[in-house]
């Protein structure tokens, strides 16, 4: 009897051990197959992200030309005046200012003084610079050139150069990096004015050796044929508190981080003996360059959606004459997913996003650059909600099912399955809602719950 009990115990132990081993093997296999654990610094992307020759929403017509550069921030005031009458913009701003003061006084969650100043503090780096000067200088800031070091400039095969630049960008804080070919159609016609009294500054391509900035124009050398497109992931823990000032801090930090990354990378490239122009949102459209560089696809939000971080990224770029191997666009099933999902459009409080089943060439206003296929958004409605909510909103970014922290393997599994089996997309959309993803997290808890912020921002 004693012997039998001992043998049974050994058998149970061996069986348990076998099951644990099998479980570990399954887990590892799952992670290997789907690319789980491929964090922001991983160089190889998951296998379900297919490289393609043309972007999934790459259809363009002859209308597609260089954009005016008038973004929604520049257009909002005249449009508001045109739609709601003279003085409506000023009245809106006055009422907003009054509301902010009242919310600070009553310590409204997400709008207390610490919440607002957290966002203001995060803007510091970005607000201390402007296109063409400071951190975003189009010429060398402080790096020693190869000539100063008594050496020729660095040369290597294009693939190796691309690898070097991507490694440097990742070190400086890039979440995703890709190399795209310069496309003049993506470059704005004009730089935004710093104030209304200033004249527009043209952005021109000229056959010169070095980029330059003058009182009248920004000059990009035509030899700059390479664009390093960069995505900076935003802090999801903060972003999940939108629409509040606390949530705005994630965007602000993303911008400041972008300024740091592109300026550091531009200096690195100059240090190798080449020219570089660092840009954040300025100078050119970041999204098409990022699509061409294979960082992500254009989604229903009319923003870039990356497979790793969803749309919760800030985009920036560096133009250069350093020869590198180009990357190709990617297809991870996003456009098919967006056709069914519409979660962002439903979540948008201003109904600014399209509910159309199919993307089209129909633009919604002068803020859209015509001539390409997309789900165009009504930026006027969007910005109007920004004024009402005293925040930069961002609900659409958080509600996207691709916006995940990627700690749970199941997210990778879902994304991988969606990329190969679009028939399962409606189920994933239902599951995303059922699991409670995309809902606002309590802003008050951020200060007290030993927040994990800083992992992605």
């Amino acid at each position, binding site marked *: 009897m004693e012997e039998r009990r001992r*043998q049974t115990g050994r058998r149970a132990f061996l069986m348990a051990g076998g099951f644990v081993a099998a*479980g570990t093997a399954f887990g590892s296999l799952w992670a290997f197959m789907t690319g789980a654990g491929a964090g922001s610094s991983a160089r190889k992307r998951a296998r379900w992200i297919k490289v393609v020759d043309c972007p999934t929403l790459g259809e363009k017509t002859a209308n597609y030309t260089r954009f005016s550069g008038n973004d929604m921030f520049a257009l909002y005031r005249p449009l508001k005046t045109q739609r709601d009458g003279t003085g409506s913009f000023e009245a809106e701003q006055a009422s907003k200012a009054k509301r902010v003061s009242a919310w600070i006084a009553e310590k409204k969650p997400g709008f207390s003084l610490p919440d607002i100043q957290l966002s203001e503090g995060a803007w510091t780096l970005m607000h201390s610079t402007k296109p063409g000067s400071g951190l975003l200088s189009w010429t060398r800031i402080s790096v020693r050139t190869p000539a100063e070091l008594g050496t020729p400039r660095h040369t290597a095969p294009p693939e190796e150069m691309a690898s070097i630049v991507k490694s440097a960008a990742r070190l400086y804080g890039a979440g995703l990096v890709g190399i795209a070919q310069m496309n003049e159609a993506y470059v704005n016609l004009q730089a935004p004015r710093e104030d209304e009294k200033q004249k527009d500054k043209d952005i021109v391509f000229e056959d010169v050796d070095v980029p330059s900035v003058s009182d009248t124009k920004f000059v990009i050398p035509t030899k700059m044929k390479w664009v390093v497109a960069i995505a900076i992931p935003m802090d999801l823990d903060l972003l999940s508190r939108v629409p509040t000032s606390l949530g705005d801090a994630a965007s602000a930090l993303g911008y400041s981080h972008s300024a740091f990354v592109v300026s550091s990378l531009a200096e690195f490239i100059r240090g190798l003996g080449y020219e570089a122009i660092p840009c954040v949102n300025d100078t050119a459209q970041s999204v098409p360059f990022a699509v061409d560089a294979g960082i992500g696809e254009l989604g229903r939000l009319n923003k870039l959606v990356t497979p790793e971080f969803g749309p919760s990224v800030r985009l920036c770029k560096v133009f250069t004459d350093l020869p590198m191997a180009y990357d190709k666009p990617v297809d991870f099933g996003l456009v098919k997913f967006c056709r069914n999902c519409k979660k962002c459009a439903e979540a948008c409080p201003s109904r600014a996003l399209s509910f159309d089943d199919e993307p089209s060439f129909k633009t919604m206003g002068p803020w859209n650059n015509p001539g390409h296929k997309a789900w165009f958004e009504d930026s006027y409605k969007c910005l109007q909600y920004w004024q009402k909510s005293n925040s930069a909103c961002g609900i659409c970014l958080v509600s996207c099912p691709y916006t995940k922290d990627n700690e749970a393997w*199941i997210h990778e599994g879902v994304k991988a399955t969606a990329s190969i089996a679009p028939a399962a997309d409606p189920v994933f959309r239902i599951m995303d809602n059922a699991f409670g993803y995309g809902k606002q997290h309590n802003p008050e808890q951020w200060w007290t719950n030993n927040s994990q912020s800083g992992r992605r921002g």
Partner: protein
Amino acid sequence: MTSGADFFTITIRRRTRWFWGLAGLWLLLEVLFVQTAVASVGEGEYRAATISWIVAGLLAAFACFAWLRRERPHKNRETSAQPQEASTTTPAGTSTAA
């Protein structure tokens, strides 16, 4: 296993491929949901964590129930072919069971 006066009769039942397939699937789902439950807390997604724990618990309960009932013949299977069996008789205390 039945015990006689001087010997045991050991029945070795070979599990079908269906059994192992189902066991593998169960294990995969169990690991996946437990990992999701733990990771969701780290992600700050408490509802997802709760649901994942519930699903993992249900899967574990189902496995316990199925394991406890494993020797019971299925109603519809009583008249159908039985799984492959092999019997051997050994002197008491010298079982050859794996």
